[in-house]
């Protein structure tokens, strides 16, 4: 246990066991965990889970694949440029299996283009699995799942080259994007592809909204895998997201009313850990 002897001066604990100022943070993690758990448990026992509204950008995924099938051209998927430790990349993984399955079913070519070696490895495995589950392992071509470059703009250049050579009919971009978002969306738009773009990078979102046919805004990408899976258990977790937002909205309302009535009151702020 020698290697645990690192910190010399430690902060004073709160309530005996919590690091300073982290009680409320932990309560939130625990609270959301409990809500998700309850919703999942409800779904497992077959009880009713509220309907999820239609998300146009996700409904359009099947339409895009259908269009590509009709035209006999490939579908491209890009999972952003960050690695597996970013939640947006994890959200992208949730969509890959759905898209790959649809492509396997309709015998449409599926291209996944990667900028980080780790998502590349994961997506290759998900796609292989999807083709297997659709009974088309022969149709899976490992060369269509590509690692292009770990360098942002070298990657972008390579993708644009593929757009020009292979002429895909549909381009689905979900994940963490930076400046390349606009370059990719511009090229795709000019080539008349049907494009779906989604990211939680707020600086890049406007370009997806302006240049793509459908866009997924922020939180919508995190609901995507649950939405597409159509499984009650996963639906339950999306409902839990809504519950947390209701709690947040209520706190904001109470806080604003308090601030209006008694501007000097810090009660609520103190409860929320003094932020």
């Amino acid at each position, binding site marked *: 246990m*020698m*290697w645990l002897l690192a910190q010399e001066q430690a902060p004073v604990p709160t309530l005996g066991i919590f690091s300073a*100022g982290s009680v*409320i*943070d932990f309560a*939130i*993690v625990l609270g959301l965990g409990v809500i998700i758990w309850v919703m999942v448990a409800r779904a497992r026992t077959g009880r009713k889970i*509220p*309907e*999820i*509204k239609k*998300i146009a950008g996700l409904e359009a995924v099947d339409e895009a694949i259908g269009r590509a099938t009709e035209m006999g051209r490939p579908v491209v998927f890009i999972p952003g440029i960050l*690695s*597996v*430790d*970013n*939640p947006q990349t*994890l959200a992208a993984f949730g969509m890959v299996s759905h898209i790959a399955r649809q492509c396997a079913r309709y015998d449409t070519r599926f291209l996944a283009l990667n900028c980080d070696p*780790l998502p590349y*490895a*994961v997506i290759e*495995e998900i796609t292989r699995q999807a083709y297997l589950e659709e009974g088309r392992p022969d149709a899976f071509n490992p060369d269509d799942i590509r690692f292009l*470059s*770990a*360098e942002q*703009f*070298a990657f972008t*250049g390579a993708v644009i080259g593929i757009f020009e050579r292979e002429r895909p009919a549909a381009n689905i971009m979900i994940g963490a994007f930076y*400046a390349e978002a606009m370059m990719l969306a511009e090229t795709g738009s000019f080539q008349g592809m049907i494009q779906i773009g989604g990211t939680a990078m*707020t*600086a890049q*979102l*406007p*370009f997806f*909204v*302006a240049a793509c046919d459908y866009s997924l*805004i*922020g*939180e919508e990408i995190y*609901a995507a895998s649950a*939405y597409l899976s159509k499984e009650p258990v996963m639906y339950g977790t*999306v*409902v839990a997201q*809504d519950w947390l*937002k209701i709690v*947040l*909205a209520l*706190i*904001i*309302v109470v*806080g*604003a009313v*308090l*601030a*209006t009535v008694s501007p000097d009151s810090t009660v*609520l*702020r103190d409860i*929320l*850990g003094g*932020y």
Partner: protein
Amino acid sequence: MHITSDPGIWCQAICTLAVYTYLYKDNPIFRIAENVFLGLATTYWFVYSFFNYIKPAIVEWIGTNGQYHYVLAIILGLLIFFRYVPSLSWIARYPMSFWVGYGTGYTLAFTPAVWLNQITASFVALNSLQNILIFVGILCTLVYFFFTLAKENPVVGGIAEVGKWYIMIALGSAFGNTVLYRWNLFLGRANMLITQWLGYTG
């Protein structure tokens, strides 16, 4: 005007101009520049992380300090190469799981502090038009993101619609700022060429 004789600046200028040839069309000069860049970048980050993490781990942490558990960290990292062995490729899932777990934990542990503050910042006194607009906007935007509320309901639908307006205005602001920023990047390069390379000081 006095053109520099510094070979470093010349190298920078040539690299810059080589990339800009792409604006005319894709051509061999650009593709050479692109591949030189890709090669250098790949190696640079590898060398950087080797001398900052791998070497210190072996020499100092394990060698000098005797923190032998870092041997396991190195082995864990190396397991990713099992993906090249088809029959054992599942072993590569172990390091992957560790990274995902770390990222997951990090998201859970470090983000609440930041957005809790965003919540308390929304406790605005409803006594000015500006504050009321902020307050209403935050709530409407949150409603827009509700996945289970029936948007067919005219009241809910109306609120979500207002939320959408707020979202589009925020994204429009982001758009407007980004356009100007992108051109600033070009100005940076142009400035390098004009002042440092060509020596124009007017």
